[in-house]
């Protein structure tokens, strides 16, 4: 059984099916009462991490989310999908507006070192800001190798083979752990959180101060 710990970033975003409306004062988009869910690329990251655990290639999957209190719903979904632990970095509503890839990557790199993880799995981008920066910045701050836009992942010992979707087609690279990987659409099809698992995760996820 491997010793690998995997840190997965999950972001709470406005659901992809919602019709976005701009606020009347043009200061942003309407978020009150609007359906939010886990960023689809983060779902793919959680799925991949859980599959690594099921294949006994990883020991523990830790889901982390940065933002206001509602982020805990997103962490619970990750737990229901099979993550072992969740970390909520609480940020007030007002400050959350100014939370961008630079700040999040600082948080993630600090957590990665604190939790002694060997792999950081993130979605390639969030569907609200489409930044596509957090994974790359996190790797730079940790000085770890990165495999972005992953459409296939194979782990053998401490060598990670990543097939990436790039402009010219597909590129296969080999990384040595610890590493940062960002997930692309065709990596996997995320499982639905089942009702029994959601109930169990609600019972498990009693927040403890960090």
């Amino acid at each position, binding site marked *: 059984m491997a010793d690998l710990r995997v840190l997965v970033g999950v972001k709470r975003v406005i659901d992809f099916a919602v019709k976005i409306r701009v606020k009347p004062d043009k200061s942003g988009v309407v978020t009150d009462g609007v359906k939010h869910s886990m960023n689809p690329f983060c779902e793919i990251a959680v799925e991949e991490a859980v599959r690594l655990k099921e294949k006994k290639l990883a020991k523990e999957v830790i889901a982390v989310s940065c933002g206001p209190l509602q982020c805990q719903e997103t962490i619970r979904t990750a737990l229901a999908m099979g993550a072992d632990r969740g970390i909520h970095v609480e940020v007030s509503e007002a400050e959350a507006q100014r939370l961008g890839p630079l700040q999040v990557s600082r948080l993630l790199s600090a957590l990665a070192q604190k939790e002694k993880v060997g792999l950081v799995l993130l979605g390639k981008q969030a569907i609200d800001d489409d930044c596509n920066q957090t994974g790359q910045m996190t790797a730079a701050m940790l000085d770890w190798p990165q495999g972005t836009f992953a459409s296939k992942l194979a782990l053998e010992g401490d060598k990670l083979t990543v097939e990436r979707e790039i402009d010219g087609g597909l590129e296969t690279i080999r990384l040595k752990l610890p590493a940062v990987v960002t997930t692309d659409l065709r990596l996997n*099809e995320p499982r639905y*959180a089942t009702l*029994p698992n959601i109930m169990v995760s609600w019972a498990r996820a009693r927040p403890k101060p960090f």
Partner: protein
Amino acid sequence: MKSSLVMARLLRVLGGWRSYCSKRQQERVSDDFVETLKAVVGEPNVSIAAAVREQHGHDESMHRCSPPDAVVWPQNVEQVSQLAALCYDHSIPIIPFGTGTGMEGGVNAIQGGICFNLTRMDRVLELNADDFSVTVEPGVTHKALNSYLRDSGLWFPVDPGADASLCGMAATGASGTNAVRYGTMLENVINLEVVLANGKILYTSGQGRRFRKSSAGYNLTGLFVGSEGTLGLITTATLRLHGIPEATVAAVCPFPSIQAAVDSTVQILQSGVQVARIEFLDDVMMDACNKYSGLTNAVAPTLFLEFHGSNQGLREQLQRAEEITQQNGSSHFTWSKELEERKQLWAARHNAWYATLALRPGCKGYSTDVCVPISRLPEIIVETKEDLKASGLTGPLVGHVGDGNFHCILVFNTEDADEHRRVMEFGKRLGRKALAMNGTCTGEHGIGLGKRQLLKEEIGPEAMETMRQIKAVLDPKNLMNPGKVL
């Protein structure tokens, strides 16, 4: 002079050929009336454009397009009520319209009238996860609802082939591949908000009520489910949700004969295995699907099964099912748990309609929909295949055998009058065969335009008269989708 006469005749011929749909009936819907419609919903939400009306004059069936006189898009139930009242005062037919994915010509405006496209009302109004219920507007389709529900651990299992409007599914009493375990719309609709022909708003189970069962009064909800827009416009549906299963396994199993496949179905059901999906494809269909999707499945009568449950429970279900299929002579039993592999296994079944049409490009498809007691299924399928051969028709079979329901998808050239006639007669014969076996002429598609005669034969004169009386009470002017069902 002569050339302009020729031009006039040419234009009439061309005009007639171009819009083979019936013309707008000027006398029934005046420009003034269109203006009053615009006053209710706003100018962008009313259209008399020919292309828009043609689009709303047909569904996925091969019934001839009959466009309405105008199309309106109400934004809320108050507007639907006002528009209906207007139509009632002027005695103009009302045609409810959802996604236009029906199979029996239910939206064809054969007497003209106003088509109410309800899909701009597309909110999920209220999700009560702990009570396993949700209330939706007509613009919400079943795929959109399941996407909305994905992090709640709940799902809505009724899944007809198309991504249909849930209120439309309630109107046609739709069903799908999961019906054998989870039921059809009839079992999964708790409450409906309906606008009647005169504009009055009715709540079939009482406003805002959502319970798991009730004994209160007459079952109005059940009356409107399957009424195909002939009794009122459904503007909200409260639906029963189910928990997403802990684990799912899909399996594919070819057989040496149809009898063996159907016998296995009956035995699996009798063994107590709560199979979630059990679908049958005959050899012609398997061949079509292989060609269309580039698959290499065995070209033989095949069962596609799916099991839902806990990991432990699934092992037992699989074991029992595999034993039964082996006893009936199946050559192998391929199964899979991973989502991507399951999708691959089911790809053949999901593409059945298009794969069939691809057998004869340029032709249209007509699907039969009979449903018989399960014990009679082998008999009727075997007889159907013989009839197909005798009539010289192309008709692959696909069926929800767990319910005793199967579809013969007839591909034919609509221009060939003889083939068209043979297809229609085959359909009638098959319907009558099902009736003779104590079954029904339509398991899930509805009566619509084409099966009204069969409905009479199926339910008998007393029931027919009762239905007519109910219709007369709820829609005395016969404005709600006239010419359908009765």
